[in-house]
């Protein structure tokens, strides 16, 4: 398939009968995939938690969601270090729980990431439109830039995973550095610019506000679980996936703390709670042009990195479902030259375009969050069943998470609390989405499952599970 020439350069040639995804990624790419998808939540979105319950509630939501996602990252790291397959949680569900759960988890992933991609493209288009307006141009449109964002990133993904995630690594690192520079730029050791005591505002809506703010507290970390989608393309899954995921989680906890402190110390909660680009607004309040430019670049880069990672993850999940015939097998193809799931990438482009051009941003984002939340709830069950069926010592693990079953229980409790938080603000969407997943589950169980090659779908060389 591929040859290495004497000078060490890679040349792709076809000489075999088999094609697989390319194993070229390292821990830094895994970090870039996970943090790249999430970091946009620091630049915009998390601050709606402030609107729900005030600055202090947003901090509690930040910590609570941080705990939820630390559990997610630990659980994911352990299971994925043994299930080295594209599709991440879908492949986990297939092997550990069963086909119907796997079908649902696969759809959670595709919907969550495609919606998030659409939301990011909308945001990128909005930012460019805003810049056009600020530059004095009349009648500027965002749609051409929304479409260009999706098409350009789809092209990048289509032509290879290494370039895609190296690009993500660079722009994500720049966006993260922008947050760090802003944090030190406002001199947090002094109160020259920051007024936390005056602006924090207590708990204006009491503890109900704290619970309601949990919904948007997820934005600080939503998407870190996407690192598992790279499982089939990393050089050493057992090492790179836990390392990249846990480093990503640490990065996000640092970025979230810095973002919250800077923003609530610079802006009244009433404004911050409905701001479109809070970090950029914080930079504007410093009066520093260089900080403004840096945070604008960071905002754009974080948006692009998130959309880019979403295309990568959604296509892997869709590809895996096609390969197992949970969806038409046509989607399970790999490009012989670029070694990417090219049909899945191509197929998801018009879907992302339809949502980006035709649906309101808040509905798109809520659908993404709810699909993600359903996936996290699955993880708590999945982990319990994984340890029960294959206890420590029965199969080789690249990472063993501590204190089991506590993280799985904490994850389940926090998911339940977050469902209630989402119900408070978006109850209709929550119910509509539940109906959607129930209907498609029935379609899978009564129609689609007969196409699945039942024996072929279980590929892991694991011993027979305990009790079977």
């Amino acid at each position, binding site marked *: *398939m*591929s*040859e*290495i020439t004497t000078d*060490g*350069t*890679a040349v*792709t040639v*076809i000489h075999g*009968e*088999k*094609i*697989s*995804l*390319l*194993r*070229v990624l390292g821990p830094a790419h895994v970090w870039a995939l996970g943090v790249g998808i999430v970091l946009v939540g620091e630049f915009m979105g998390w601050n709606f938690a402030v609107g729900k319950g005030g600055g202090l509630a947003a901090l509690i939501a930040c910590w609570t969601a941080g705990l939820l996602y630390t559990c997610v990252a630990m659980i994911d790291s352990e299971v994925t270090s043994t*299930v*080295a*397959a*594209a*599709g991440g949680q879908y*492949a986990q569900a297939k092997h550990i729980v069963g086909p119907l759960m796997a079908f649902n988890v696969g759809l959670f992933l595709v919907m969550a990431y495609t919606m998030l991609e659409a939301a990011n493209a909308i945001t990128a288009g909005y930012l460019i439109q805003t810049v*056009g307006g600020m*530059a004095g*141009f*009349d*009648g*500027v*449109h965002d749609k*051409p*830039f929304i*479409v*260009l964002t999706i*098409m*350009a990133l*789809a*092209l990048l993904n*289509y032509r290879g995973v*290494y370039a895609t995630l190296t690009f993500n690594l660079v722009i994500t690192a720049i966006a993260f550095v922008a947050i760090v520079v802003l944090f030190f730029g406002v001199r947090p050791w002094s109160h020259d610019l920051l007024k936390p005591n005056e602006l924090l505002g207590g708990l204006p809506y009491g503890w109900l506000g704290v619970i309601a703010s949990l919904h948007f507290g997820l934005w600080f970390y939503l998407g870190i679980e996407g690192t598992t989608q790279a*499982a*089939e393309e990393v*050089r050493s899954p057992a090492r790179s996936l836990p390392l990249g995921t846990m480093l990503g989680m640490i990065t996000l906890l640092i970025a979230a703390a810095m973002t919250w402190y800077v923003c609530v110390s610079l802006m009244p909660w009433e404004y911050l709670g409905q701001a479109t680009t809070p970090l950029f607004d914080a930079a504007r309040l410093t009066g520093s042009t260089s900080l403004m430019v840096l945070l604008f670049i960071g905002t754009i880069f974080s948006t692009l990195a998130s959309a880019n990672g979403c295309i990568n993850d959604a296509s892997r999940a869709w590809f*895996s479902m096609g*390969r*197992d015939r949970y969806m038409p*097998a046509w989607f*399970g*193809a*790999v*490009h*012989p*030259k670029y070694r990417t799931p*090219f*049909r899945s990438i*191509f197929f998801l*482009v018009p879907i992302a375009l339809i949502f980006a051009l035709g649906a309101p941003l808040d509905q798109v984002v809520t659908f993404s969050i709810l699909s993600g939340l359903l996936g996290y709830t699955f993880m708590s069950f999945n982990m319990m069943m994984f340890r029960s069926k294959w206890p420590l010592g029965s199969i080789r693990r690249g990472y063993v998470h501590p204190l089991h079953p506590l993280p799985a229980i904490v994850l389940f409790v926090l998911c339940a609390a977050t469902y209630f938080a989402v119900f408070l603000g978006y109850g209709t969407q929550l119910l509509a989405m539940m109906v959607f997943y129930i209907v498609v589950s029935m379609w899978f169980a009564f129609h689609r499952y007969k196409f699945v090659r039942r024996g072929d*779908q279980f*590929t*892991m060389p694991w011993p027979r599970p305990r009790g079977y």
Partner: protein
Amino acid sequence: MNAFQWLEYLAWAVSILIGAWLLYDLVKTNTSYSEDVLMSSREGEIEDDLVIDPTHRGAK
């Protein structure tokens, strides 16, 4: 027509070109290779012979 409108037309044009190329490559690839080859990938398969990353293969 102002500069931003030119930029908008450019964005549309580049998007259409990318879409056309993706479609062209998709059709070309589908017709150039058999389905058996294109869909020969197997879940979780680790084949060191297929790894092309030079560093992984010990190259400097």
